[in-house]
């Protein structure tokens, strides 16, 4: 489930961005944003920055170019999404979108590489979602996934896997 955490673990002097995506007005779609809200409520190491938005866009290439490591957090509708959460690496990927006004993770990484010559190590923390109606409350299962992911990150940032001083 978290086999990529070793890769994600920060090295000395590495700046890390945790970037939550979603819409909290659409129930579980807001999981990424909710995770950032919870992280904002605790004390994190100084090298960790937090950001959130509805979706990614071109200017995020500039934002992530300033970091060595980026951990995106987003809800997933995919049936095979692993509960309570999973972490996997993301690679730059050329892709086309149709009038969506939003970019994919791989697209933003491509943009970052092409425009600024930067290739932050990027990972996606996927939180399975189950309900997507117009409401602000998370489903019960999604709430549990969120809490476990939050506890995991809080523990990891305080553990020896995180090699920076806190």
């Amino acid at each position, binding site marked *: 489930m978290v086999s990529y955490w070793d890769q994600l673990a920060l090295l000395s002097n590495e700046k890390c961005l945790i970037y939550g995506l979603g*819409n909290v*007005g659409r129930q579980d779609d807001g999981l990424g944003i909710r995770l950032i809200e919870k992280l904002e409520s605790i004390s994190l190491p100084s090298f960790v920055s937090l950001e959130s938005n509805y979706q990614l*866009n*071109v200017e995020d290439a500039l934002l992530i170019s300033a970091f060595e490591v980026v951990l995106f957090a987003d*809800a997933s509708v995919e049936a095979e999404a692993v509960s309570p959460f999973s972490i996997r690496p*993301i690679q730059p990927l050329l892709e086309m979108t149709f009038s969506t006004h939003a970019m994919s993770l791989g697209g933003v990484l491509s943009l970052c590489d092409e425009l600024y010559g930067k290739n932050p190590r990027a990972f996606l923390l996927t939180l399975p979602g189950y309900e997507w109606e117009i409401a602000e409350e998370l489903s019960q299962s999604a709430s549990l996934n969120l809490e476990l992911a939050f506890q995991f990150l809080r523990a990891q940032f305080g553990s020896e896997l995180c090699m920076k001083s806190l």
Partner: protein
Amino acid sequence: MSRKITIEPVTRVEGHGKVTIKFDENHRVIQTRLHIVEFRGFEKFVQGRPYWEAPVLVQRLCGICPVSHHLCAAKAMDVIVGTPSDQIPRTADKMRRLMHYGQVFQSHVLHFFHLASPDLLFGVDSDPIKRNIIGVIQDFPELAKKAVLMRKFGQEVIRITAGKKIHGTGAIPGGINKSLTYKERDQLIQEDSEFNADLMVQWAEEGLALFKGYHKKNKDFVDKFAAFPSNYMSLVRKDGALDLYHGVLRAVDHAGNKIFDQVDYQDYTNYLSEEIRSWTYMKFPFIKSVGSGNGWYRVGPLARLNTCDFIPTPIAQKEFEEYKAYTYGKPNGMSMHMHWARLIEVVHSAECIRELLKDPEIYQGELTRIGDRQVEGIGVIEAPRGTLFHHYRVNSDDLITMCNLIVSTTSNNEGMNRAVGWVADHHISGRKEIPEGLLNQVEVAIRAYDPCLSCATHAIGQMPLEVSLYDSHNQLLDRVVKNTNI
């Protein structure tokens, strides 16, 4: 044998579009329909909530234009608290305008540079592998970098006026919750900054020059592609000037004759109605006096430059004069000229932002004004994609009891249907297979209107574009899919 072509972004919730094109037995197009699943459920979501929450709540509607919904709801709530939007304090009016022009600027920039410029720089029939933002970066890196910084500039304007990049709280019923500080302003005007207001005006002009250069070389395509007459509607300032934030409603017909003018938008239901059609949940607004058959209208940049008399900033006005001269002062019905109009609005927005940042009234003054409480309020704003209506009723317990929204993509519903119909007529009729490049043409036609198809969830697992060909028995004959997995 009739055939049906389906173009369907397979998203799991609202916010996606689907195109169906039907042939008769001789493979002639007999019907074209663009299906967009409208975002109606939100109106229920707002009911029962205190009215002052509306400007924040409505930002959940859309991740693309939350500021437009924020300001439009605030304008409706101005009426509820007894202070119509033209009576709120000057500082509040200017802060809201700055926020709005920041939104329009960054939205239009995204549309042109990210979505439309690949079509223009590489040609609409070019390989999709090249015809995208990465292709633009590889061949035009400086242009791409400027586009990113323009987006960032617009978002910084939003952040300093709304309080946050997303879920801002700046506009409140009767005014605004803070004025601008000089410190906030400085990052947007300093000459040595990576972006500043002067540079934004300059780069906006460069974007416009890019379109005009393309137009000069491709007049036949730009002028003829999905060109058709229609009615047009927008807000205009009382003196007829382009005003994206506030004004009166004006509608003109294809020849430029005024259908109505100087209409207080509190009375919009006397002038507009919405038709329901059996094949879609999306409504079709129309002008009552013209009727449902011919009363459909277009909104957005093309419409705004057809309804207004002039633009109240100097560089944009000069461009407007050239634009209007191209059609001898008559309304412009050319869908691809939407890009031209949009880029003139980018220049205008940049000029407005520069002007507002220099205005001392934006830094101090009265922030809110409250009058006699009302039970019903309507807000209207020119969102980047066109006229946006928010209509609310509030009970004596301060709770919202009714909410009705007309979003610009709804108003452009018929126009987009006709644009796709034009493509079908010109590129599919008489063919037995899905022709190569069909997706490109359909995309270009819809994209000109910059419809907001992503006002729903976005979570991983979407597939945005699919073309399927069916026979009269709904048997699948052919399918083309565009996938955007991460």
